[in-house]
């Protein structure tokens, strides 16, 4: 089941600023990159300006395989509780990847009924529009 986007109601774009620029550039090139602190090596997601452990502002983007398991999920069934531009039902998942960080995204090829916590998944990238590419997760080695 591939998610259907209603072109008349355009999907809202991510807000790109100097802190999360690296992540979304990677997504546009179909690469998953995670923020890593150059001084203490802490790998952390939702990019931020400073490493919360050693407060250094030197950071780099390490590529990630994007393999992991579904840690938590929601299935939007009632259309008014979701985004009108995306046809319900669709699911939103938080996946814990092997690097030890979690990523929020949609599912690519798993039906909402078939979503279970613990299902192994891997990253894939969906070009929805020419200026919008979103990370998604599909079943591992499918």
């Amino acid at each position, binding site marked *: 089941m591939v998610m259907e986007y209603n072109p008349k109601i355009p999907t809202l*774009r991510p*807000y790109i600023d100097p802190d999360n620029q690296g992540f979304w550039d990677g997504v546009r090139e179909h690469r998953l990159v995670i923020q890593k602190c150059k001084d203490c090596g802490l790998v952390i997601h*939702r990019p931020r300006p400073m490493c919360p452990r050693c407060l250094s502002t030197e950071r780099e983007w390490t590529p990630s395989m994007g393999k992991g398991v579904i*840690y*938590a999920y*929601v299935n939007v069934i*009632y259309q008014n509780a979701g985004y009108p531009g995306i046809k319900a039902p669709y699911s939103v998942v938080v996946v814990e990847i092997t690097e030890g960080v*979690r990523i*929020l995204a949609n599912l690519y090829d798993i039906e909402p009924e078939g979503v279970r916590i613990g299902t192994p998944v891997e990253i894939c990238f969906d070009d929805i529009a020419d200026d919008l590419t979103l990370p998604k997760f599909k079943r591992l080695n499918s």
Partner: protein
Amino acid sequence: MFDEYLARRYRTTTRPKKEHYLVKDSAAIVGIGATEFSKDSGRSELQMVCEAVKAAVDDAGLQMEEIDGFVRFEMDYTDEMHICSSLGIPKLTYFAECGWGGGASCSTIVHAAAAIAAGVAECIVCYRGMNEASGRRYGRIPGTPSIMTAPRDHFGSILPFGHCTPPGWVAMFASRYLHEFDATAEDLAWVSVVCREHANRNPNAIFYDRPLTVQECVEARMIIEPLRLYDCCVDTDGAVAIIVASAEKAKKLKQKPAYIVGATQGNATEGELMTSYYRPVISGLPEAWYTGQELWRVTGAIPSDVNVAQFYDAFSPLIPMQLEEYGFCDRGKGMDFCRGGDRIRLGGELPCNTSGSHLSEAYLHGMNLIAEAVRQIRGTSTAQVKNAELSLVTGGLGIPTSAILLRN
């Protein structure tokens, strides 16, 4: 795989000394006022707030000129200047705001009590007015993201995935909570059923005349899995105003004062606006845990002393989660505490949400819970707990939160 610094650690070393906590017993809630709760108020939020403040001032037996402070929700669309121009309040020496939506409910009382303890003001109004049902519904689509950059970056990370409404945000925590403690939808149903029982005794509640059974809950329409229709709060038009005054002044006023024993706030790192999925454990609410630890520390009370509690229940899973975080039962035992409803019903071990609260009375960001807690202390509640000495109220979840403890 998660770094130890992220593990939940409770700061024991540099807490302020207990005897320095001036807020204890230095202020009291002396007035509560509310409009009717409806699905279409037919008037502006400003008008409802003015009516609620006027009702609260009459309830407390005060004069409008005696009000010298205002605390509002940052999300509220009415400014205190506009309200004072409508109510003719000549002088304010204190006005503050609290952020974080529902989490601000009890922190308005924290600000008011701190200002009164510091001798800056005598009578402070805390209010919330919402046209959620007829006007703009928060979270339908957040529309233009707010202009501060950090939340923009936050909205930008969830909206493209269609994850854009509070039921979805809380359902993610609930999906993990139900999974880890293998609870079922039927367990959740007991929470909504008990709240509805209490609402059926409260004529102001929206669902006053509509009973609810566990069967109806389990078969209700699915909103966002795992939350069904009756697991979500009832959107409401209405306004509530609470007046906090100094303890000496409270003694001289019309109503029996509800003294503020403690009022605390809690905030945990790695947090976001209701989407803090990046912590080691997301089946718990660290903000609520910190708030509770600080509340018991500064008040000297322990959870078993509490006679009645109003937990913030925008969605039903939040009540069992808070029972664990505030120390009423062990981790993971929240569902068992609620199963069957006997322990949280009127007459049970800890009567909860005795006015029907958000699930059945009205959703006014926690202010109607504070009003109910005050009624319990005064003895005028429609679901009155016998000799209620200590009444607890908690603030919104998934965000920095707050809690207050009232006594008679």
